């Protein structure tokens, strides 16, 4: 790696403001987000911003509404109230595939591999705008040749991605046969094949051994250099404190505090929320 690249890599960490109000051009902006399930209010007016190119952590005790917030942002749930703005456009309540096409994608808390498909198929599914996704083009002689040319490139990219995550030796294995950690890698590989701008990671490190965890975090760092933005839900405080330059703490469906690691660690309210004290 050249010196110039090293400098670039450390740049964002010093650049990123400590409170999200100060973020001028956020890639993602959540404003007054509410989600009710019957009588339960899972998210209760959460507002925050995520800076472009940042590695932002979203933490909070169990039931704080992190996963529901993710689901509302990515179109799995429709929010009861509030808005989600991505890249300057209001994307509230849009379908997951529309968001994915715009570059906002997610992984799942419990890895959801397509188990009866091979690892390579899983990864090859993701690239956007594949010609062969038209049934007609896939069948008609003459048109299919173009589909095949297109696919040859997809195959190449898929192999490269699998090598990047070091699961290329499993390429022809059914995804259902993978270990828990390998599935997490596969999810990451798959989601990156969609050529995203921003990736929401829902506990990508849960159940992943420390060696693999380091690997994954290294990968994320590499990808950030390419300009990707990450929003991470994670329970491992060491990871959050050491890797995220901006941290959002949720509690009872609301944003309790935000800032860098030092700010969060010295925030009384955060400690109380985690230790279960009275607020």
């Amino acid at each position: 790696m050249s010196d110039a690249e090293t400098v670039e890599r450390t740049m964002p960490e010093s650049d990123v403001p400590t409170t999200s109000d100060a973020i001028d051009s956020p890639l993602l902006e959540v404003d007054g987000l509410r989600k009710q399930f019957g009588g339960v209010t899972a998210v209760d007016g959460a507002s925050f911003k995520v800076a472009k190119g940042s590695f932002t952590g979203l933490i909070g005790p169990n039931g704080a509404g992190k996963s529901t917030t993710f689901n509302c942002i990515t179109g799995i749930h429709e929010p009861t109230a509030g808005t989600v703005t991505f890249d300057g456009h209001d994307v509230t309540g849009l379908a997951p595939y529309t968001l994915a096409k715009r570059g906002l994608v997610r992984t799942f808390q419990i890895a959801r591999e397509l188990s009866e498909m091979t690892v390579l198929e899983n990864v090859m599914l993701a690239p956007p705008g594949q010609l062969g996704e038209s049934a007609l083009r896939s069948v008609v002689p003459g048109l299919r040749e173009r589909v095949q040319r297109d696919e040859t490139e997809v195959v190449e990219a898929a192999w490269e991605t699998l090598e990047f995550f070091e699961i290329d030796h499993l390429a022809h294995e059914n995804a259902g046969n993978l270990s828990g950690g390998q599935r997490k890698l596969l999810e990451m590989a798959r989601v990156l094949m969609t050529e995203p701008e921003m990736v929401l990671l829902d506990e990508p490190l849960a159940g992943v051994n420390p060696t693999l965890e380091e690997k994954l975090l290294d990968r994320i760092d590499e990808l950030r250099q390419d300009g990707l933005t990450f929003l991470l839900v994670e329970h491992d405080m060491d990871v959050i404190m050491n890797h995220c330059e901006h941290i959002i703490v949720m509690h009872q469906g609301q944003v309790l505090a935000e800032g860098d690691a030092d700010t969060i660690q010295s925030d009384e309210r955060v400690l109380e929320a985690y230790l279960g004290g009275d607020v």
Partner: protein
Amino acid sequence: MSGFEDVRDRLEALPDAALVVSFLVGIWLLLTLLAFAVGGAQSANLAAGFVGSVTVLVGAYAILTLALNLQWGYTGLFNIGIAGFMAVGAYTTAILTAPVDPGAGGVPGFGLPLLVGLLGGMVMAAIVGAIAALPALRLRADYLAIVTVALSEIIRLFVNWGGVAEVEVFGKRFGTGGATGISFKSPDEVVATLVNGPGQPLVAAAESVGISGPNVVNMAYGLSLLAIAAGSYWVLSRVSDSPFGRVLKAIREDETVTQSLGKDTRLFKIKAFMIGCALMGLAGALFRGGAGYISPAQFRPVITFYVFAALIIGGSGSNTGSILGAATFSALLFYLPARLGEYFPTFGRSAPGNVFEAIAALGSLDPTPLVAYTVGNISTLRFVLIGAVLVYIIQNQPDGLLGHRNEPAASVDLRRPRSADGGETDE
């Protein structure tokens, strides 16, 4: 269990085309042997009749099973209204091709050529498929199942209704014929004209060895259906071995994930459903309407479950498996027992009136009443056989004959490209 795996391992060693052809030839040989065992002087003609009929069945079920495999095996769309989509195809073809002036008692139609009628039938079945799928696509798979099975009954009862037996729209008279059915341009007759015209030397040759002309036509019709099945296989293989097929498989596995990866799954589901329904419509017209006549009774829901049985036996998710399953079901489980029943020796006894008498005789160590009873009721008892085979397969081999195969959906070679090899050894 080992017996089944033995068969499976042997199937595995062959390339797909050889596999299907040897399977079919095996079935033909088996029926020919049966014919020569029981036929006496008429053996050749009997064999030709057996082989012709079984080929029609295998061809028709192959088309149906392939269509269902695209919907259920690939996409996970639980369509239990196959009979309904067959009826739409068959009735559309019938109405389009029925003669304009049918004479006394007949139902008038549009008098169009058969090819136009068949295309119309496919298009109509696809459209009805889309209409059935639209409201159900937002819901879970079980709801699609309920919608389709209900729709298939609605269609059958609708064409059965006297109110549409013959109607006049814009001065044009046509209809479904109601419960009495409708006669139209017979696909079988089109084939017969070809066979008796340009194929006359063939018929003469067959007649010289004692095979009757109608049996030659029947065989030719069966082979035409097989050719259409082969064409469907070609199309569906290309559909499934493509990025399109990959999305379908992904929908079957986990639709939420597929959506999260940027695929508008509703469009894919509708397309897959429509393609499958179009083929079902075609099979409905050619199989049920082969002789140029259809009636509502030919489209009872039971045929839907036959096709599911064929797909489960063959292996859901495999196109080649679908054809093998169709052949196994229609020839070995459906057709063969009926023929065996006709010719199996009953030791000169007539069958007892009920199963209790047949079993009671076992007490006096006389198995012949039970044998006679079984043979006499074989066309009913074969459903017990089909049920037993299904239970066995679902318990021991839920993947069927070929469903366990790893058939990645892609249009190109998936081995690691040389440029990306990175010095590692792949082989």
